[in-house]
């Protein structure tokens, strides 16, 4: 073939493509240029349900991400839980006010010794397919969640109090004797100690009910169209594109007011799409917060902020010099002005922490327990330290892409340098490396956070500061604190229990194992057509309370 002919062919193909693309663009632009290219009535180019970005009555449009998994028994992240609590349910649930109320159970009864919980299931508790939920379903679900093969990261944390769960998880025994089927509608759960917070753990997805028939017939892929018991059914899941939930009119606690919730998983900045009327709710980031807070802006009237049960903190590894010395930790804490730094770097989007328990948590103390900003006291505190003349190098680690440190961290470094004369270095690593170092106890100090899983002080004070807890990643050990935490764990009088936790909290904050930095707020804008929107402080089922009117 002659070179010219071949090239001519190549070129004409190229030219053809260009003409097609260019010509069509011109046509489009001439036609008024735009996104509104609708077909004749009845013909849509998308699949079922029409264009998800178009508003419709009873349809709520949210942004979202693909969940890691929709299997309630293995999910451990908040974004998966958001979907799971709407699709599935368990014996008990949390209300928007964080009260624990029966869900699939119609009532429950705790034995006088606090060890045995007896649940009676509702007669009308059904899966989405209409099948009745029985006591066998409860037992099978808990045994599955705690099974050796499933190797769930959350099983021991949420179900480990039940007699036999640990042995079952490690494959030493088969079955969980602590869960007994009394009759078709009655199930009895026995735990290893009278722990008042056990009921709260049952509101977490690890304790939810799944459909045995579905899971066994399709163990690998059943979560693509799961048969749950929650207020919504998963109607569609297109990876990276959208998730559609449809109301379950049979839900035991009442049918949702919405007919459909569409989560749009791609499409760029949520706030921009909100302003373009593609979304009904969007989060506001620090870049847009001034605009949202301005009452005269278009966003102003739509903006609200909601406190979250989330704390960020600087963790000091109390095993490693110089943080094995309480005076160094306290000195660093006294030398930072969190209120001012939060105002400047985060435009007050975060509330400076007043302790470890967030406002609204049981046991929250309204007085500020944290170390105040006091440069003189900081210097005096440091003088008490055995490292005062011989400060080892300090590295604070955080997750990042190797660029600048977090702006607030930079401000802390500056205050430590000018007030205490201590030069602290920042080390940024990617998330996986950070976690590996953290798990291995290799980090000296690090930026971290904690999101409450259930509204009980045990979920943070005991888990993070008891010397025997595997989640105590600062190796904090104080026999006095341990004794308080042990006592609070099984204290049956609620008031005495909370005051024990408060005492422990005061000690922990005072010894500065953590430097509590901020409590988070959720900043959102909501379209006026949406009524009842709220941002609960932690993940709870909420979509059934929301309404959309157009």
């Amino acid at each position: 073939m002659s070179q010219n002919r071949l090239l001519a062919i190549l070129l004409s193909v190229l030219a053809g493509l260009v003409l097609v693309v260019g010509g069509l663009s011109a046509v489009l632009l001439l036609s008024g240029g735009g996104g509104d290219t609708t077909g004749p009535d009845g013909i849509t180019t998308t699949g079922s349900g029409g264009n998800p970005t178009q508003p419709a009555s009873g349809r709520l449009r949210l942004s979202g991400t693909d969940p890691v998994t929709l299997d309630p028994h293995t999910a451990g992240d908040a974004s998966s839980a958001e979907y799971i609590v709407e699709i599935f349910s368990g014996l008990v649930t949390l209300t928007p006010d964080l009260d624990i109320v029966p869900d699939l159970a119609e009532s429950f009864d705790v034995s006088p010794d606090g060890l045995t919980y007896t649940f009676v299931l509702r007669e009308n508790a059904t899966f989405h397919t209409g099948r009745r939920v029985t006591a066998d379903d409860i037992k099978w679900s808990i045994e599955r969640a705690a099974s050796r093969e499933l190797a769930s990261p959350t099983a021991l944390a949420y179900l480990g109090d039940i007699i036999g769960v640990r042995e079952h998880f490690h494959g030493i025994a088969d079955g969980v004797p602590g869960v007994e089927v009394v009759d078709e509608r009655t199930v009895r759960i026995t735990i290893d100690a009278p722990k008042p917070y056990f009921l709260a753990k049952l509101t977490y997805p690890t304790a939810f009910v799944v459909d045995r028939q579905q899971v066994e017939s399709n163990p690998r892929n059943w979560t693509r169209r799961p048969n749950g018991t929650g207020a919504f059914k998963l109607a569609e899941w297109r990876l990276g594109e959208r998730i559609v939930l449809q109301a379950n009119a049979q839900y035991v606690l009442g049918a949702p007011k919405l007919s459909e919730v569409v989560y749009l998983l791609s499409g760029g900045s949520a706030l921009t799409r909100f302003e373009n009327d593609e979304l009904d709710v969007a989060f506001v980031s620090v870049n847009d917060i001034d605009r949202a807070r301005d009452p005269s802006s278009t966003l102003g009237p739509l903006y609200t902020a909601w406190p979250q049960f989330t704390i960020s903190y600087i963790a000091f590894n109390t095993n490693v010099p110089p943080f094995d010395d309480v005076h160094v930790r306290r000195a660093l804490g006294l030398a930072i002005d969190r209120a001012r730094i939060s105002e400047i770097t985060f435009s007050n989007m975060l509330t400076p922490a007043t302790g470890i328990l967030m406002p609204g948590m049981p046991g929250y103390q309204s007085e500020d327990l944290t170390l105040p900003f006091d440069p003189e006291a900081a210097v005096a505190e440091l003088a008490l330290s055995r490292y005062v003349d011989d400060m080892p190098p300090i590295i604070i680690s955080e997750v990042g892409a190797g660029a600048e440190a977090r702006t607030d961290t930079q401000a802390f470094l500056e205050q430590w340098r000018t007030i205490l004369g201590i030069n602290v270095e920042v080390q940024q690593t990617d998330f996986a490396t950070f976690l590996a170092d953290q798990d291995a106890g290799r980090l000296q100090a690090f930026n971290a956070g904690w999101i409450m899983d259930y509204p009980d002080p045990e979920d943070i004070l005991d888990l993070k500061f008891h010397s025997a807890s595997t989640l105590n990643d600062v190796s904090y050990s104080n026999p006095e604190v341990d004794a308080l935490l042990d006592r609070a764990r099984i204290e049956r009088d609620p008031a005495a229990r909370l005051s024990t936790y408060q005492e422990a909290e005061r000690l922990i904050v005072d010894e500065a194992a953590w430097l509590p930095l901020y409590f988070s707020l959720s900043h959102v804008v909501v379209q006026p057509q949406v009524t009842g929107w709220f941002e609960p402080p932690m993940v709870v089922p909420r979509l059934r309370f929301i309404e959309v009117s157009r």
Partner: protein
Amino acid sequence: MSAYIVRRLAWLPVILFVVSFSTFTIARFGPGDPVSVAAGQIRDPEVLERIRVERGLDRPIPVQYIKWLTNAVQGDLGESYLQQGFSVSELIFPRMWISAQLGFVALVIVFAIGIPLGLIAARFSGTWIDPMIIGTLLFLQAIPVLVLIPPLIWLFALQLNWLPVGGWDGIFDVWWIGGVIAVPIPDPHLYIPLIAFTLPGFVGVARLVRVSALEVNLSDYVRTARAKGLSEAAVQFRHILPNSLLPLITVVGFALASIIEGALFVETLLGINGIGRFLFEAVTSRDYDVILAATVIFSTVFVVTNLLAELCYGLVDPRVRIGSTRR
């Protein structure tokens, strides 16, 4: 020739073996693992170890690799830790397809605009037109995509309301004439990413074509063509144009391979569900099987497109004899 192709393709499994084994090993030597990343804030070391045992991550690397290889040969590329319940193929191919479509359209436009501009620059070499064209294109290339996209969104989506803010809905949309005749038109989601993709790309093609055209312009046959009295148009289109495009063929091979990988920034900023963004997340969270599968697929595409480019070159330019000393 066919023997050459067979011989080249026979190397493919060897290349893939080396690529997959080294990726597999390197990924596992990196700090952290997907179990730890997927665990969330409840990180009981005892439980994490239990999960590693259950997933076989405690076994020696060669053993793990052989298991992966056995499955891969049967078409099972493994499972993702970040998107549980889906096979790696289900996660990768749809996203790759999106990135590939976008990349292909972008490539066509880059060539369609870059080539003529390069030829014009060469034709007017020595005048102000040449540096103006190349300078403008260099300027466009110098605008980072991160800076380019936000004003485009602001103008076309928020102010003019012509285009959506982001996302992806295929290359073509349908435009109805009188509600009866369907005409395919470019989907409105396409414009902003295309502008972002193509603007920085023109200069590469234009400069290559320009240099090559200048070189061809000095060659004997062009002088002969001019000497025998051919019109300037005929010289430009019959002699200079085809011959100055030759070097582009080699570029196409590389370009094709790289565009499939998508553009991380474009996909992230515009919320396009493509492979670039997905792979970035997979790497930072040590999603072993996803990283591995993507590496193997990209290697295959790279090898094959380069082979095709070589073959094309041989076809187009007889001076390049491929695979055989006789012809």
